[in-house]
């Protein structure tokens, strides 16, 4: 049985890789299989986790039912009113609730993690001294300055209500450079991690399937 599953996995892997050459029937078959199987899989997972485990066992069969879950269930049912043209507009209510609640719930979290904490961590003594000798640690001091200039110029770049010209524009330009250097570093780092994924697949094909690698 394991051998069969390895063969299926290997053929599907090669089928997806064949897209590198061009679109072809094998890729189309793999794609259709992938989409169909994954859609069905997630449908079952969502049904089992949410409707059965969370709602049915939590609000219907539980010894102490959580009646709040009925609110979610009713809102979920309201989505289905889209199928009835005359009352289809009702489906906007749960949608509005989700969008509004999402914006509200995320507001504080985003504000703290993406603004407050970033600012707090940028504020520091820019002259860093060696703890042992008390002399200025030039490397760390330079690093602190780079972070400070990067944060300030980056913030200036994201000003939308002021034209980027003069000193403001030059600062924004510096911000752009910082962003690009960051993207470059991130690009290289992520490409390396993707290479490890590729190595994993090649290892599977040459090792588990063909037994060339041991």
């Amino acid at each position, binding site marked *: 049985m394991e051998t069969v599953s390895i063969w299926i996995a290997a053929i599907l892997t090669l089928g997806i890789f064949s897209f590198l050459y061009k679109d072809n029937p094998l890729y189309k078959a793999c794609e259709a299989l992938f989409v169909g199987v*994954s859609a069905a899989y*997630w449908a079952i997972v969502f049904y089992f986790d949410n409707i059965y485990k969370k709602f049915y066992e939590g609000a219907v069969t539980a010894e102490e039912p959580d009646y709040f879950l009925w609110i979610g269930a009713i809102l979920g049912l309201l989505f289905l009113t889209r199928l009835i043209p005359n009352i289809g507009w009702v489906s*906007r209510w749960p949608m509005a609730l989700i969008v509004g609640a999402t914006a509200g719930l995320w507001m504080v979290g985003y*504000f703290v993690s993406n603004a*407050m904490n970033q600012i707090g961590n940028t504020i520091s003594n820019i002259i860093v001294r060696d703890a042992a000798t008390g002399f200025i640690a030039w490397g760390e001091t330079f690093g602190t300055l780079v972070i400070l200039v990067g944060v300030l110029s980056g913030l200036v770049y994201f000003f939308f209500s002021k034209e980027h010209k003069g000193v403001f524009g030059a600062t924004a330009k510096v911000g752009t450079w910082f962003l690009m250097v960051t*993207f*470059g570093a991130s*690009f290289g780092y992520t490409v390396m991690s993707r290479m490890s994924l590729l190595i994993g697949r090649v290892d599977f094909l040459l090792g588990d399937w063909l037994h060339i690698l041991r």
Partner: protein
Amino acid sequence: MRLSSPNLTHNCLKIALFTLSLLLISLNVSTAQDAETAVDTAAAPEQAADSVNIAPLPASNIKAIDLPNDNGGAVFISWELSPDDDGNGKVSGYLVQRSESKDGPFETAGKAVRGATKFTDNKTNDDKIYFYKVEAYLEYLDAAGEKVRITSAATVTGPVQSSAQWFNMNRLYVLLFLLFVAGAIMFYIEKAKKGDEIYIRKIAGIDAVDEAVGRATEMGKKIFYIPGIQDMNDVQTIASIAILGRVAQMAAEYDTWLEVPVSKSMVLVTAREAMKEAYTKVGRPDALQDSQVHYLTDDQFGYAAAIDGMIVREKPATIFYMGAFFAESLILAETGNSVGAIQIAGTAMPAQLPFFVAACDYTLIGEELFAASAYLSREPRQLGSLKGQDMGKGLFILCIIVGVILATLNIWDMSVIFVSR
């Protein structure tokens, strides 16, 4: 002076004998020393055993209070170190014991390592009162290899009851900054509503939207709009749907086919609503078909594989990638690039931005994604919001500059008001 050969031999013999005798003496001394050391070592375990059998002195000044700024269910216990907790191995740690009665029985609420002076008991019931005691303890292995624990005497402190607080004072500054930003946004929205002109700088990626839609119209090809793989509980998806509304409006005006493959059912519903509103706004509600917004799969790479297939088969003239993307970003953008589509991307995912920058014609970086809908719609409410947010950024820049100066001059560490505790 010259030494004759017999003298030399005699002298050498004397030196050799002297050296040999010294060597023997030193050997005797070292043997005796080794013997003494051995005796000391043999006595050591007994002495050690004697020393470990002494219970450590107790911790003092034990206090138990309701943990402040929390949602209940926790008690904070603090103490001063046992005098034996001086790093010489006489204390292994502290046992925090909890009881609902002053006289016990006590159960272990948790352990703290040696040198620790505080512990938070996160398993309390807000409806009950508790008493605590903190025992310094020493653990060692006895002669049979069994672990032995000796605990100090301890005084009972309490009663204490946990409770929830309505307001988290640790986040007071968050509230103040939020109020400032929200106030600025409301102020500028009102100004914009009254007709004040609000300037918004050019954003290349957003300016290119018109061009991209026009190109698809001229070529008679489709436009693909990919709203990312996150659900409607992600602000990037919300921003993406707002931009979709504007793109759909243009597509409806130019009578160009706009296709939106989605990976989440909620996004499907919301995107259809946004499209419906856009088509209705330009007076062409009948031109919209449900099949324009369709579901593929929730699976990340299944979604990517399906879109790749669609791109190479249908060769759209324009592709928008707006929203939250993960590892599929480069797969999608490279495929779009290979068919020669004009591609505009926008995301606030830092790890994916480099891929979009590399493979797309235009990229909305981070907050530009959120500014896009205001820029495209030119609605006073959204423009005012953008201006208000800029005021918030201005305040942050000011805080950073002032904070760095104060910190460098060793006057005040202003970062404490920003970093969440």
